[in-house]
C-alpha cells in the first residue's frame, strides 16, 4: 500500500514540492492505480518468460551517420531562458 511517506519520497526525487492536500490526494490516486494494476497478479503466468516489451523485435539499429536536421535556433526556441546559446537553469550546487 502506498503511504504519504512514499509520495513524499518520490516527490523529492522528482524535485516536486507538494502541499499537504496534494500529498493526501496523490497517495490515494497512486494507491488506486497500483491496486488496479495488481489485478494482473491474478493471471497464472507459470511457464511464461518475463518480457520487457510487447513486441518481439530485436536489434533495431541505425548506421553511425551524422544527420543534422534542425538548427540550434529552432531547437532552442522552446527554452524558457537562454544566454549566449546556453540553456539557463537555476543555480546548481
Amino acid at each position, binding site marked *: 500500500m502506498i503511504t504519504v511517506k512514499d509520495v513524499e519520497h518520490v516527490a523529492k526525487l522528482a524535485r516536486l514540492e507538494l502541499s499537504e492536500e496534494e500529498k493526501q490526494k496523490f497517495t490515494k490516486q497512486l494507491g488506486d492505480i497500483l491496486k488496479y494494476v495488481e489485478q494482473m497478479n491474478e493471471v497464472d503466468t507459470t511457464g511464461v518468460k518475463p518480457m520487457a516489451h510487447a513486441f518481439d523485435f530485436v536489434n533495431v539499429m541505425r548506421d553511425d551517420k551524422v544527420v543534422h536536421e534542425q538548427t540550434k535556433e529552432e531547437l532552442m526556441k522552446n527554452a524558457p531562458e537562454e544566454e549566449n546559446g546556453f540553456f539557463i537553469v537555476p543555480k*546548481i550546487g
Partner: protein
Amino acid sequence: MDTVTREKYEVVIGLEVHAQLKTKSKIFAPDSTEFGNEQNTQISPITLGMPGVLPVLNKSVVDMAILTGLALNCKIPNRCKFDRKQYFYPDLPKGYQISQYDEPICIGGCLDIKGKRIGITRAHLEEDAGKLVHAGADGIAGSNYSLVDLNRAGTPLLEIVSEPDMRSSDEAKAYMEELRNILRYIGVCDGNLEEGSMRCDANISVMLKGSKEFGTRAEIKNVNSFKALQRAIEYEIERQIDLVEEGERVVQETRLWDDNLGETRSMRGKEDAHDYRYFPEPDLMPLEISQEWVERIKETMPELPKAKRERYMSLGLSEYDATVIVEQPELAFFFDEVIKLDANVKTSINFLTGEVAAYLKEEKLSIGETKLTPENLVELVNLIEKGTISNNIGKQIIFTMLKEGTSAASIVEKQGLRQISDEGAIKEIVQEVVNSNPEQVASYKAGKVQLLGFFVGQVMKETKGRANPKTVNELLKEFLD
C-alpha cells in the same frame, strides 16, 4: 601517518571507468559527437528529450562494445537490454539516463597488470550527460543561475567495472594505464583523461591486513589524471585509517576529489538521490548478439598492447623500451613499419623513444604530422650501422628529416657529414691536436686522465663531429700513453 599504523592496513580498490566510444554520431541520436564545438550545436529533439521522439541505437556502438569486451576477455551474453536510470539534474534533459542495469553487454572479464590479474565484473553501455557551466565561474559574482551545453549529452559511454582486486594506488594506476592502452589500440576510445573521454570513479576501502571482510567503501569521483587517481587513493587510505584508528566508522558515501586542495570532500545530501528506480527502456528493443556477430568482430581484433610488448621484447627490446613505445600507439605502429624493413631494432627504438619522442612533445605533434617516414628512418639507421655516419651526426640530422622529409643519405651528401674512418686522416688531426695543446698533454701525462674527453672534443671540433669516435679514442690513447 606513521608507517607502523599504515602497515597494519590493506587498501581495497575497485575502479569504474567510463570510456567515451569514438563514434561519429551519438548512441541514440544522429547528432555529431565531435569535441570542443560551439555550445548546443550538436543537439536534436532526441537529445533534448522532447515529447514523442524515439531513440535508435547506433550499430557502431554495439560493435565497439563487443570488441572491447573481447579485448578484456569478457563474455558477450546472447541477449542484453537497456534500462532507464532516473534522476533529476539539469545536464540530463530527459530526467533519466538510458543505461543497462541487469543485462549488460559484457560480463566477467579480466585484465593483466605486471603479473597480476584484475577481474572485470561487467561493462555496460549508456549515454553521457551534458555539461553545466557555472555562470559564476566567469566572474559574474552572485549569479543565481547555471548554463547548460548539451553537445555531449548522448555521447556513447562504455562503463567498465572492475572487481575490487587492486591493493595499492600503483596497481590502480597500472590498471588504468593498461586499460587506456587497450582502448586506444582497438580504436574505440582516445583515452584523453583531461578532456574527459576517459573518466574514472574509484571505490576505496581499508581493512586490517589478513582480514577476510572488506571495510566500508567510499566512492571517489572527479579523478581526471593518473596523478589525481594516485593522490586521491593515498588521501583516502589515510583518511579512512585515521577514522578506524580513532574508533569511528567509515561512512559509505560519494566523495569528490579536489585536485587543488589535494583532498576528498563528502557530497553529503545527495545520498538519497541514489534511488534510481531502474526499469526497462520501453523505447528500445533488446539486443540479441549472435555467435556469428561476435566472431565477425573478433576477426577485426588488432594486436593488443600486452602481445605487442612481448613481441618487442622478443626482438631484443628492454622491458622499459617496449613499455614506453607501446604507450604511444602511433609511434608503435611506425615502429612496426620500421621492423618490417629489417632495420637494427635497438638503434631504431633509440631514435623513436629519444629524439623523435622529444621532438613530438616539444612541437606538440603526432608522428603522422611530421615528414619522417619509416623508410627514411631505416635509411638513417642503416647509415649508422654501416659506419657511414656517426651516431651523433645521426642524432643531429633526424631533426631535419622530421621537419623537411629529406632522406638521410641526401643530407649526409649535401652537408658532407660522412664519417671519417680513415685512420691516416684521423691520425693527422690527432697529431695536430696533441701538438697544439702541450699544457693539457702534460697534465694528462701527470695523471689527469679525464682530460681524454677534452682531446676527443678537440678532434671532433676539427672534423665537425665526423671522425669515427672509436678510432679517435684509440689513436689518442696511442699518442698520449
